[in-house]
Structures are given as C-alpha cells and as structure tokens.
C-alpha cells in the first residue's frame, strides 16, 4: 500500500501569489495513496527539509512529492533530505509549480488548476517509482594510450606525471609519429625534432610509462574503469631488450634497396633498419618482406655482425592482455591518397610532391640532406608552385573522394614552406594558390603576412586547373580570381597541400572500442562544446587529430586535457553509476540488435542465454544486456525495442504513461 506525502511550497510569494497552495494541498490529499499533504513557506529551507524528514518517519511514507520550483533547482536537495530520513532518494518526485506554473500564469484559477494537475501527475509517477541504488564499479588505475605521436606522448607524460601507469601502444617501430617527420614548426620556426625528441626520450625513461612499439590493439573488452585490452606485439626479429642500437647491422645488411617510409620512399634503407636516428626505442627491426634470411633462409649477415646477439630470426608475433581503467585514442592522421588528382600530375612527375614530402626534402636528416633539390634531376628549383586545399573543402559527393572539411593546418604549413624556401633560396620564385587563407591562431596571421609581405611569396587566389610536365618543366595552368585572368607558370616543382584524414586504423579501432565516429572517420566527442576530449563511450578519451584536424599546439592542449580527464577518472577508487539507466527484460527480448545499434555509448551487448520454458524444455536465446556502468540513460533503446523489453529506470514506460494519464484526466 502506498503512503505518499505531498509538500506544497509557497516559495515565499513566488508560488503562493498565483497558485492557491492550500487548494493544491487539499486536492492532493484526496488522491489515492496520499496520506499526508501540507503546504509550507519554504520547502528548501532547513525547516522545510525537516518537515519532510519528520513526516517520512512519522507517517511511514513510501514516497514523497514536493511541489516547488524546477527539479533542476532542488531535486538533489530534496533527494538528500528524503535519503537522510531513511527513504530511498529516488522515491521522490518534484512537481514544478513555479517556473512552469506560478511564474507564467497570471490568473490564480488557471495557476491553481494547473498546479493541481502537475501535482497529480507527480503523485501518479511517484507511486510507480522504484527505489534505485546507484551502482559502483572499480577503477583499474592504469591508462592505455593508443598512438605514440605527439598527442599520445604528451597525454602519456601528463598522466604518468600525475602518478599513474601508462602504456603507449604504437604500431610503428618507433614513437614520434608525424611530428618526427617535420622539419620546422609554425609559427616559431623552431625545429620539430628539437622539441619532440626530448619528449620521446622523457617518455621512454619515465618510470610510469611503458612503450609498446611495433604493437597493435586487437581486442577490447570491459567498460569504463575496467577494460581488458589484447595487444599484438609484432615480431621485430631483434630482441628489444638486448639491442644497443649501435646500427652496425643496418650498415652491413646487403639488402639495400628498400624504400624508406620515413622519407616517404624518396630514398632507401636496408632490410634491417632503425627508422631514424632519434628513434625511441632505438632498436633495429627487420622488415620481413625484404629480408633474405626470413624469406629464403639465405644471408644471416646481421646476426653475424651483432656483437650482443640481439638478432632472432625465429621471433613470432606475441599477444599480451592488460587491464586499464581508461583508454586514450591518439591515432592521428594521414595525408590522403591523391592518385585521383591526376590534373596535378603527381603520378606523372617526380617533381610534383606532397607537402609532407617537401617537409622531408627541406629536412637536414632528409633524403637530400636538407638541400632543396628537385627529385627528378637533383637540380635546384627556381620556381615553385604551392597548391592549397588538394582534397579539402570539396562538395559532398565529389567523384574524387575528397574531404568536405577544411584540413586546417595546410594554410600555415604552406606559408611556412614558402617562407623557408624564400629565406634559404632567395632566387626562387614561390607561388601559393589558395581558395581562402585561414590563419586563426596565436601569431598565425602575422606569420602568413610576413610570408606574403616580407618574403615576397606570391599569393594567388584561385585554383590550379592543370599541371602538365613538359621537357623537365611543369606547366602550371591556373586562374587568378582577383585579376580575373588565366595564368601559366613554368614551374620546377609543384607542392600539393594534401588534405589529411584519420589514420586507416582508426575505424577498426573504433569498432573495438564501440566509440562512435563521424562520416569522415574522425572520432566524435561526447559533447562538441562541453566534453570535447571524451568519447561518448565512457572511459574512452580523445587526443589529437583522431578527433579532427589539428596543429601541434592544439594537439598538445587537447592531449593535456585528455590526460586531466583520465587522471580525474583514475584518481577514483570506484565510479558511481547513474541509476537511471536502461535495463532489458530478457524474457521479452527478441535479440534483434536494434537497441545496440542506436546506443550511442556501446552499453548494450548480446549474450546467448538458456531459458527454461514453461514446458520444462530449454531454449537458447540471444538477449540484450545493458552495462549499467556505461549506459547514460537517454532512452533511445526503449523506443526502438518493438517488444518493450527495454525500459528506462526512473523514466519507465509505466511512469511516463501514468503521467500522461494524470495530465489528460
């Protein structure tokens, strides 16, 4: 039998001036189940709260309705009061008779009638309220960072500095990511390696950080606070803990003609190699696709020359399983494949390069030793054309699979390239073709203007229509939108500011993590404004360009923010879950997976379960289960479920229907 107490607040005159609070209390008293009904000056005051507490005890109440201001204001206050009196805090409902009644209705009759209806609805709901207990789940105080670029490194360092263990999983043999390939950084023009490599070393030496290079995440189970992650450690064929990184093997290896991916294939490396001089870990790795020993068992030079016996041709891929409380995704970006942009003659001429290739050509550790030379003939170029927005800002459905978004970093690095080129080689004419020059950011616009004004870079608004290689010259045909004229430039080199896209491994990773992505495969954030570094999936955080195009300062800022969020999570021993979560009635569940598909949090999983049928037979059925630690309680699942198996605690179908009934009565 229900024993409901109704407390009508005057809120001074805020409510009482346009709602006859006494009439509301009297009407409530007549409702079935109501055993106590009273009005009071200020329910939120200590005396008001005490009235609730005392009445709960005296009248042995099973539910409480407070008719007062918006529940967004004082629901928690009253929940605490109810809880203090020994009643479950979720056996409380608030009827909003201030913001949604007294304050908007001038007529006291109208206001009172409506207040009575709202009170009835709250009573109808509260009799169906179930005592809810917020569950807790433990937190494993370790974090996993997926990706060892600047985003991953920074996040790992920040988490580790706060005292928590971090593992970095990097798919390549070394950490460093894209930033390690850069020459200088805008707008300060300090060298990328000079600021990155100390961080790499710091990460390697940090006692709380473990770097799992040449490794990939291949399985994720669990949920926020207790993830179980399976990591594949690819065979290196060099014992990581034995190799000293002396590099002798990489000099002696007879297999010399392997394209060097670090220099984007513009020079060659050996079959056993260290990706670059400052690699971390500085350990050699054998490329099994090119090693003669691994391919046909003939060679073994590296093993012979290695003085510490680090070479192990029999090494196999291995798997480790680790527990983490939080996972940070820092998978970064890739320039898009520009094969489809044949008008720029990228595949026809070696002298048409991408910006990242140009970056390597400018770099002292690059294939040309830092001298700007044309890849085709090694001559110094005198006219260079930069083309912006190659594959960016294309309209949806463009046949070239370009991107609709702005890649954000291209304007700045192109200005950087142009400026550096002009500085080092003042005899070079530099043209930049652009749609818009976008330079928001501290010191960015000044930087761009310096390039255009002080360094004499020719900025031309317009797009390049065609690049035709002819007798060692690149004939660039373009249109100058401002001058309104057709241009033809005979260039020695063309540099394409290629759009960037998420790394190819991001999509399968998102599936493993049940983290959502947008149509461009960028990870989506839990809230675009308020929770920009969290994935909607609890316990998954986002760092760097995996969430959207970013430059280095933004990446580092986001990396730090993600780390702060992770630390906030790991600092807790357990997580209190929202008790108003979905739950599935297994008896009614059809196993159709519709709920799983609409859940933004990946909180729903399916299991095959045995059911004892009434005729004593056993039936195995696929049924859904909600992970209460992950569910946020939106209710999307409840409506797609045709059988009504899915319901939401605190806002159950029965409760909402009762409210509808009470209001329409």
């Amino acid at each position: 039998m229900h024993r409901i107490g109704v407390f009508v607040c005057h809120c001074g005159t805020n409510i009482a001036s346009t709602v006859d609070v006494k009439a509301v209390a009297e009407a409530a008293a007549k409702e079935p189940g109501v055993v106590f009904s009273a009005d009071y000056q200020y329910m939120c005051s200590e005396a008001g709260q005490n009235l609730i507490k005392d009445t709960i005890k005296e009248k042995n109440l099973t539910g409480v309705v407070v008719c007062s201001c918006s529940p967004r204001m004082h629901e928690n206050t009253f929940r605490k009061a109810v809880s203090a009196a020994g009643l479950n805090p979720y056996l409380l409902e608030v009827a909003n008779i201030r913001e949604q009644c007294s304050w908007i209705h001038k007529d006291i009759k109208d206001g009172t009638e409506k207040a009575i209806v709202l009170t009835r609805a709250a009573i109808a709901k509260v009799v169906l309220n179930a005592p809810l207990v917020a569950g807790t789940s433990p937190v494993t105080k370790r974090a996993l960072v997926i990706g060892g670029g600047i985003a991953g490194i920074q996040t790992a360092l920040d988490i580790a500095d706060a005292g928590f263990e971090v593992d970095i999983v990097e798919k390549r043999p070394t950490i460093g990511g894209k930033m390690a390939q850069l020459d200088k950084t805008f707008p300060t023009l300090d060298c990328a390696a000079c600021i990155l490599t100390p961080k790499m070393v710091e990460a390697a030496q940090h006692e709380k950080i473990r770097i799992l290079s040449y490794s990939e995440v291949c399985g994720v189970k669990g949920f926020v606070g207790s993830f179980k992650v399976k990591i594949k450690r690819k065979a290196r064929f060099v014992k990581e803990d034995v190799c000293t990184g002396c590099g002798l093997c990489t000099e002696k290896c007879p297999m010399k003609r392997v394209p060097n991916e670090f220099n984007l294939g513009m020079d060659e490396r050996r079959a056993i190699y260290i990706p670059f001089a400052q690699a971390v870990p500085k350990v050699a790795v054998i490329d099994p696709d090119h090693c003669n020993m691994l391919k046909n068992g003939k060679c073994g030079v590296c093993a012979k020359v290695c003085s510490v016996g680090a070479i192990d041709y029999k090494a196999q891929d291995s798997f480790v399983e680790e527990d983490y409380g939080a996972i940070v995704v820092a998978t970064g970006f890739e320039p898009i494949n520009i094969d489809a942009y044949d008008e720029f003659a990228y595949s026809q001429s070696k002298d048409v390069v991408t910006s990242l290739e140009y970056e390597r050509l400018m770099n002292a550790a690059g294939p040309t030793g830092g001298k700007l030379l044309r890849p085709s003939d090694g001559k110094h170029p005198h006219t260079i054309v930069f083309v912006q927005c190659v594959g960016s800002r294309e309209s949806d459905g463009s046949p070239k699979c370009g991107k609709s978004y702005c890649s954000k970093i291209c304007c700045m690095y192109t200005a950087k390239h142009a400026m550096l080129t002009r500085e080092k080689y003042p005899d070079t004419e530099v043209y930049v073709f652009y749609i818009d020059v976008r330079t928001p950011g501290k010191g960015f616009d000044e930087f761009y203007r310096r390039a255009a004004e002080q360094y004499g870079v020719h900025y031309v608004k317009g797009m390049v229509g065609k690049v035709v290689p002819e007798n060692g010259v690149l004939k660039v045909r373009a249109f100058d939108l401002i001058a309104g004229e057709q241009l033809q430039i005979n260039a020695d080199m063309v540099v394409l500011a290629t759009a960037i896209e998420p790394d190819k491994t991001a999509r399968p990773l998102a599936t493993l993590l049940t983290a959502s992505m947008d149509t461009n495969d960028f990870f989506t954030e839990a809230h675009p404004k308020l929770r920009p570094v969290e994935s909607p999936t609890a316990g998954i955080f986002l760092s760097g360009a995996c969430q959207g195009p970013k430059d280095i300062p933004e990446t580092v800022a986001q990396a730090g923010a993600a780390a702060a969020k992770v630390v906030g999570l790991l600092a807790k021993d357990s997580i209190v879950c929202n008790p108003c979560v979905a739950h599935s009635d297994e008896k009614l569940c059809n196993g159709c997976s519709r709920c799983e598909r609409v859940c933004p949090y990946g909180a729903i999983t399916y299991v095959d379960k045995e059911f004892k049928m009434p005729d004593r037979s056993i039936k195995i059925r696929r049924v859904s289960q909600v992970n209460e630690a992950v569910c946020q309680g939106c209710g999307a699942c409840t409506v797609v479920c045709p059988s009504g198996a899915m319901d939401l605690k605190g806002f159950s179908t029965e409760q909402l229907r009762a409210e509808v009934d009470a209001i329409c009565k």
Partner: protein
Amino acid sequence: MQVNNSTGSKDVFRPKIVAFCCNWCSYAGADLAGTNRLNYPADVKIIRVPCSCRVNPLFVLQAFQRGADGVIICGCHPGDCHYTSGNYYARRRMTLLFSMLDFMGIEKGRTRVEWVSAAEGAKFADTMNDFVSTVTALGENRRLEDLRCRK
C-alpha cells in the same frame, strides 16, 4: 483571492496540451521562460523526459486517447543533444509517426516537434502560444479520441 473572469469560462474551448520536454534543453528552456515570466497558456502541461528519444509513439497516441487535443515534443537542437544522437532518432521517429497520423486523416496541427535550447525561454513561450492557438483553432480532438475516456 482574485479571479480573472476572462479565462476559464465554460463556453470557451480550452485545449489540453501535453508537452514532452527533454531534461537538458527544452525543460530548462521552459524553466527559463518561467524565470523571465514569459506567459503561455496554462493548458500546456509538461512531462519531463531525459531525451526526446525517450518519447514513444505510444505515449503520443495515449495522450490523445486520454483526451489531449495536442501533443508537442521538444528537444535539444539537432547536433546539441546531451546524448549526442537522441534527437536525431526522435526526429525520424516523429516525422514518420506524424506523417502516418496525417495519412490516417488526423489533423496535422495537433502534433509538433520543436527544438528549444536551454537559452531559448522566449522561443519556448512563443512556441507554446503558437501551438495552443493552432490547436484551439482545430477544436476538440475527435478523430483520435477514445469515446470511453470521454467525461
């Protein structure tokens, strides 16, 4: 006690309106309308739901069954859903449901979806004023009523 005779007289039709408001945007928007003392008719009664995607078509039909003359669902603006995607699902569901009700010959004006943010108190009040006048013009819900529930 002061009684205003201009409203509440028997012969004037006062519609029953059920408004489902999502907790994070529209319910807060309604609160803001209150805080700013922006009037709208008392015929509107709000039911708080966590998200517009919690509103089952059954609730909408049930409201009509029980005597509602209009049902409005308010949620966060597309893209602003607290749960990232709830209002997108709600949008498809309600579009199809309303289209079906229209197909069955139920007056279009009796159902509506409106996006109201927590900052749009004025929009909330305007929306409700407009909706109430639309439904008032349509008169009592007869096509989707349950005769048994009639008083």
